[in-house]
């Protein structure tokens, strides 16, 4: 009967472990349930990007004008969504000639395509405070799948901030001028501030 005792002991240990492990999950769900709702993206957000170049360094900048809304549904993350619009005319790199080049029909062609949009199609939780946001990015009249990694930075009663990163292949949007001197990969590094709406 020694084996029965051992088995019972093991079962008990597993039961305790499962109970203990579930406590933080419940606590997290409680916190996250407070953040459920619709949010408007605030101008305090930062939409930074960088493009690497051969020999090191590259072009860094950000977009000053953008708008968007997102819905959070923490109990069913998959129900969350985001719609985001970027105005490429507002690109800022600290170098006027580079900005003019980016706005021109060589890159954004912002005269003909004044907005770049992203609409999520699927949000998947990847850890207690991170998620993968897949969606469709439309730029310069071309739509192609894109995905971003969001991590919860902080949140209050009516506000929430995510750090969002993602890599976009500019060749998919007809913007591959300057490759291979400048990388085809645009690295986005964003801080998204949302205010409950």
């Amino acid at each position, binding site marked *: 009967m020694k084996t029965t005792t051992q088995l019972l002991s093991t079962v008990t240990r597993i039961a305790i472990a499962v109970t203990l492990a579930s406590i933080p999950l419940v606590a997290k769900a409680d916190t996250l349930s407070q953040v459920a709702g619709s949010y408007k993206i605030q101008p305090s957000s930062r939409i930074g990007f960088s493009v690497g170049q051969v020999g090191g360094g590259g072009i860094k900048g950000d977009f000053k004008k953008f708008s968007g809304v997102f819905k959070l549904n923490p109990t069913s993350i998959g129900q969350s969504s985001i719609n985001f619009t970027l105005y490429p005319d507002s690109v800022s790199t600290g*170098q006027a000639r580079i900005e003019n080049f980016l706005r021109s029909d060589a890159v954004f062609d912002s005269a003909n395509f004044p907005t770049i949009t992203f609409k999520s199609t699927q949000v998947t939780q990847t850890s207690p405070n991170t998620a993968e946001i897949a969606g469709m990015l439309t730029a310069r009249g071309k739509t192609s799948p894109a995905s971003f990694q969001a991590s919860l930075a902080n949140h209050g009663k009516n506000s929430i901030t995510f750090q969002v990163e993602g890599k976009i292949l500019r060749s998919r949007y007809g913007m591959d001028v300057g490759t*291979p001197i400048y990388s085809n990969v645009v690295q986005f590094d964003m801080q998204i501030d949302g205010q409950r709406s």
Partner: protein
Amino acid sequence: MLRNNKESFGLISILFHWVIALIFLGQIPLGYWMVRTSDFTLQFSLYQWHKSFGFLVLGLSALRLVWKFANTRPSDPATMGPLERATAHAAHVILYLSLFIIPVTGWAIASSSPLQIPTFMFNLVVIPPLPLGISDSAEAFWTAIHAYLAYFSAAVAVGHILAALHHHFWKRDAILTRMLNPHRKAPERQLTQKVKS
């Protein structure tokens, strides 16, 4: 066949002369076109081609100089007077210097420009920038020097070409043909021409 002798040029010297001449002269309309086009995508490519060919001229000219010092120089035809010789040699010195100074001033433009566009020669080799001050005024300064020297050297090259044609059609010596055929002896042509006329 490959090396020069007292009367004529070898194949290597001839190839250096024509290949460098072709690229060097091609760079002038290319440079003229690239700064005037309003198509940014095309302009970016043209600049990169111009930079790549400029470094090719510089590299080939360095090899040519080594080859020049390792070979005898065919002597001038006896029919040339002292002033004619002095003028011809001065033109050769100016053209030789141009093959080095003009690419280096172009390198200075790329190095001093606030755009800091890397030089990726034929998308194969990264050429580091020269250690120069980076500013719009420095770029404008080097651009002006580069352009003036290019146009000046083009004028000297036109003189050089006219002189070669003068030798061929009026003086009927072998100055031009010895730069076209390895080891054609100068007196042969003089002799045949005399027989014909």
